[in-house]
């Protein structure tokens, strides 16, 4: 074997480095987010999750409307207006959010289980950027899903409440409905971010699912069971209650004395999502891939 002395085309010239700075960072983030969107749309779990979200919203919202009006007719709860969009909010918190968790969970954990995290990090060695891009792509998609499923839930709830048997309670105020749908979409997007953060920090879908379920559902239930003012105080500041305060509908959980204001609830939920992502970023940058 002779060392190569043959002449050939010159090696590909590496492109000159672009100057670092905010412009480059934004451009790189945009490119990476576009890559993450390709990843998101090219696996079935995303579309199954989205279809499930739509199906759940379009069934749970009208069923809730029927049940709520039925309870009012039988005087089990005080009669009041039943805004169709709040039925969609109810569906988002108690049903659609599970589809969103299922959709968000594999965004990072599947990279580890398939080891595609290696090529991903070879292309994007700036790991925080990778996670930021995933967050942007996932939250945008889930927000859009929220708008579609929230609208579908609102319309189906409105339609059933036109039925002669339960007519007279339902209301549909376009501005209020739009605000509700936007709020529930933001709620779902933040839950997706929280799930992504947990998946990044824990790397395994099973562990992340356990952690997210515990934080969202088990922990508040336990705290409220234990009772006491501290328990309630803390429970109101966990992601679920904070989110329910944020979406601002009495139908989801009933009004609580200790509940945060919508603005504060939104901030607290945002902080939970940011904390989960920060934990994910920390693990992602510190640990070997």
């Amino acid at each position, binding site marked *: *074997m002779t*060392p*190569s002395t*043959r002449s*050939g*085309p*010159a*090696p*590909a010239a*590496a*492109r000159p*480095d*672009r100057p670092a700075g905010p412009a480059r960072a934004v451009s790189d983030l945009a*490119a*990476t987010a*576009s*890559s*993450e969107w*390709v*990843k998101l749309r*090219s*696996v*079935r*779990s995303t579309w199954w999750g989205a279809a499930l979200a739509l199906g759940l919203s379009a069934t749970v919202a009208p069923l809730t409307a029927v049940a709520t009006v039925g309870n009012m007719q039988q005087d089990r709860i005080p009669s009041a207006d039943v805004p169709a969009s709040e039925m969609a909010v109810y569906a988002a918190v108690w049903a659609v959010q599970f589809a969103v968790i299922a959709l968000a969970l594999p965004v990072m954990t*599947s*990279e580890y289980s*398939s*080891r*595609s*995290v*290696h*090529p*991903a*990090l*070879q*292309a*994007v*060695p*700036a790991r925080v950027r990778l996670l930021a891009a995933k967050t942007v792509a996932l939250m945008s998609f889930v927000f859009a899903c929220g708008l579609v499923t929230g609208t579908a839930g609102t319309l189906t709830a409105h339609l059933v409440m036109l039925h002669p048997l339960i007519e007279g309670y339902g209301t549909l105020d376009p501005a209020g409905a739009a605000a509700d749908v936007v709020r529930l979409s933001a709620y779902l997007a933040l839950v997706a971010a929280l799930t992504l953060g947990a998946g990044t920090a824990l790397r395994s879908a099973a562990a992340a699912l356990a952690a997210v379920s515990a934080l969202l559902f088990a922990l508040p239930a336990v705290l409220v069971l234990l009772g006491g003012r501290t328990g309630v105080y803390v429970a109101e500041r966990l992601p679920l209650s904070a989110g329910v305060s944020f979406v601002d509908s009495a139908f989801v959980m009933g009004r609580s004395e200790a509940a945060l204001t919508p603005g504060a609830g939104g901030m607290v939920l945002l902080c939970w999502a940011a904390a989960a992502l920060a934990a994910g970023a920390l693990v992602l940058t510190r640990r*070997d*891939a």
Partner: protein
Amino acid sequence: MITLQGLSKRYGDTVAVDSLDLEVRPGRVTGFLGPNGAGKSTTMRMILGLDRPTSGRALVDGRPYRELDRPLHHVGAVLDARAVHPGRSARSHLVALARTHRIPDRRVDEVLDTVGLAGAARRRAGAFSLGMGQRLGIAAALLGDPRLLVLDEPVNGLDPDGVRWVRDLMRSMADEGRTVFVSSHLMSEMQLTADHLVVIGRGRLITDAPLAEVLDNSAWSAVRVRAPHPEDLVTALEAEGAGVERPGAGELVVTGVPIERVGELAHRAGVALHELSPREASLEQAYRELTSDSVQYAAPTGGRR
């Protein structure tokens, strides 16, 4: 060019890579050899910034991988053929990688064509055979037209055509002045492809030398002589300090002197020769000699009865 400076990696008590100093130069194929568990894959992961060294540095074109601007234009790498989401199509996998560097989709179709996967581009990668997965990995490595290729056992699972294709690819990349760093356990294949060899054992550097030198230094490299009356030649050779074995009557195996010198000595001693031929070591033999002390996971010899 890849530069390793005192590169070390520990996992708990295991020292996977032990202060490796190395330069992998452009314009040639550098084979990276070593027994199972020697630390080859770990070294490559550190080069690619996937694992953080416990100490020391791994530099690509003078910089840590994580600091490269648009790294896919610097380095193309295949560590693991199956590192693809099983539910994603081959094309989507590549498009997602390409988007990070604003590489146009046209280039994706080009590399799919290059590796012979154009027909399977829209199939789920989970249904790919090992060899197809390897081809997809190579396609990803070629996306950015990189100056440096890092391949961990790239021919593993490839059919003979594929093996040949990878060999030609590595040769042509090196001939174009690019850097090719490839690990393999297939010595015959390495002997055909590599110009330069780096051998490690238990994380430590054993050899960093041109292939030809490694083969020449093998104890197996020798000169075979047949002569009806070799006694005077044996005396002359031993006076030169050569090793002489006599496997049969009228037969010599000479080590430690070049074949030309054996011919001259025979001429001077007036010994008639019936044969004077080089016995070339295979890389397999040379490799076994080099690593015999550092094999950690060996099957018991003698085989099962």
